[in-house]
């Protein structure tokens, strides 16, 4: 078992310097006002109600990997408007400017508790982390690299689903990414899927639910169809907690619900059990 040390909080507070003083955030769950610095120090979890604020990809990566171990892959992949879908390019440019990202996922090689893991982190800020050709290609390349290099794969999922603007090409990314995971599984390498708020649609119906181990963050929304669609189709009242992590747990669909503060420790521990070892 790799030895795990809790990291100092400052490792996560990279952006501390450029954060204006006195910035307060309102918890969307309990309404408490929390200071930005407080949030940063608590993995962006509300101290009053444990609500998990949405993380951007950069924050997530820093929170999970061994310090300094992250090497980004395929950072320059950008979408092209194959279908000439109206105003898609403008939309993309807009999100690129707002987030500093090229598309909705960051992938790269890393070490977690000393074990090699190729990770992918979806960023919900970028067009609802919808999956088009770029997300699909980056996930596929990441998984293929992990297979070639005997690495684990860990994907932090969050997505509104397939990216409509890329039509059928976005649907095909579901088959492409699942195919790459088939080969990774054949090589007997671990794949851990971490479901974060919200994971829905085509991402749930492909790589998000294919993990050897599936972990969910507390209270996150996980589903295939959106709750409104379910309601409208079935004309039924939705059961309490429908499509939450806890609902998934109750129905036996996830392995564990893991709060953010314990995520790195949990992943480290899992990799320790699952990574191939040289025969003794």
């Amino acid at each position, binding site marked *: 078992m790799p030895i795990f040390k809790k990291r100092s909080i400052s490792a996560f507070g990279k952006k501390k310097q450029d954060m204006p003083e006195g910035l307060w955030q309102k918890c969307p769950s309990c309404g408490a006002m929390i200071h930005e610095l407080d949030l940063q120090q608590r993995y962006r979890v509300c101290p009053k109600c444990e609500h998990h604020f949405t993380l951007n990809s950069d924050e997530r990566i820093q929170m999970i990997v061994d310090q300094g171990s992250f090497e980004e892959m395929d950072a320059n992949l950008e979408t092209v408007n194959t279908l000439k879908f109206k105003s898609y390019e403008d939309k993309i440019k807009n999100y690129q400017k707002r987030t500093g990202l090229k598309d909705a996922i960051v992938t790269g090689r890393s070490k977690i508790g000393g074990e090699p893991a190729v990770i992918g982190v979806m960023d919900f800020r970028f067009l609802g982390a919808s999956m088009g050709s770029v997300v699909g290609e980056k996930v596929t390349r990441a998984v293929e690299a992990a297979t070639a290099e005997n690495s684990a794969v860990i994907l932090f999922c969050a997505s509104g689903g397939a990216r409509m603007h890329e*039509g*059928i090409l*976005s649907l095909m990314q579901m*088959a*492409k990414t699942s*195919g790459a995971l088939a080969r990774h599984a054949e090589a007997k390498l671990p794949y851990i899927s971490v479901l974060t708020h919200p994971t829905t649609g085509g991402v749930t119906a*492909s790589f998000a*639910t294919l993990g050897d181990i599936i972990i969910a963050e507390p209270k996150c929304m996980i589903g295939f*169809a959106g709750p409104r669609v379910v309601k409208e189709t079935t004309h039924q009242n939705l059961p309490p907690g429908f499509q939450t992590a806890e609902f998934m747990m109750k129905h036996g669909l996830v392995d564990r619900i893991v709060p953010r503060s314990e995520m790195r420790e949990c992943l480290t521990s899992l990799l320790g059990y699952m990574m191939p070892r040289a025969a003794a």
Partner: protein
Amino acid sequence: MNVEPLEFEKPVAELERKLKDLRENSKEIEVDKEIRRIEEKIMATKSDIYRNLTTWQRVQIARHKQRPFTLDYFNQCFDDFLELHGDRHVGDDAAMPGGFATVEGRRCVALGHQKGRDTKENLHRNFGAAHPEGYRKALRLMRLGEKFGAPIIALIDTPGAYPGIGAEERNIAEAIAFNLREMMLIRVPIIAVVIGEGGSGGALGIGVADRVLMMENAYYSVISPEGCAAILWKDGKHAPEAAEALKISAPDLKQLGIIDEIIAEPVGGAHHDHVAAAASLKTAVLKHLRELEVKDTDTLLEERYQRFRKFGEFRER
């Protein structure tokens, strides 16, 4: 069969009614000329309508309730079909029938989404919207095919996987995802044909194949035109524009390289002539089956992987 005309087919229906009237109600020689004139006009109108079908008109044809469905094709194309039921865990999904079949002496496994023609049938078939049990049964049958060396024929015709409470509770997303992954590894040839509606993940869930064929008037899309219109225009009435923009018709998908062949339908669409439609489907499936049968298994699987691996467009700089 009395075919119900779609909105854009009404000019033809009107002419046909006139012709019938003329034939039944007059015995004089002079009307021969008139009959010939109307017949010619029907031909011209038909060719004009069907040669210039919009994507939205094709969607209407793809959804026509008199269109041949999966079991109609099974009946027409196979020497025999032995249905096998159940996912061995929860239930039997009537929206996804499947079983053993023989086609031209070849043993195969056949399955697909099944719609109903009337309310009673649709309650039974759930409008072709399968539950997790359907996808799991489909994979169970595919594994039978793999075990006994029988190629797999999957017919796609669904508005989408069923978005219900029970479906979510029993992990519809995982049932689809699992098929996507496992179908990539199945060691016998797989041919999928989109025969009507190719509704998103629910379609793809049995659509990871060595060859993906498509009936001329079928559509295959990541989202329904109505759903897309509701998001983009905040109004489902813009579905015709959405259908065009999404590029979901067989010619568009052939051009994008998503499908391997367009299977021609009888004039006016498959619902005008089930026998002819089934004959073209059978010819196409057999042709591809013959090409796939001679490949060694590792080549087959590598080509299947690459077939889907190449999808997607992006730039890198």
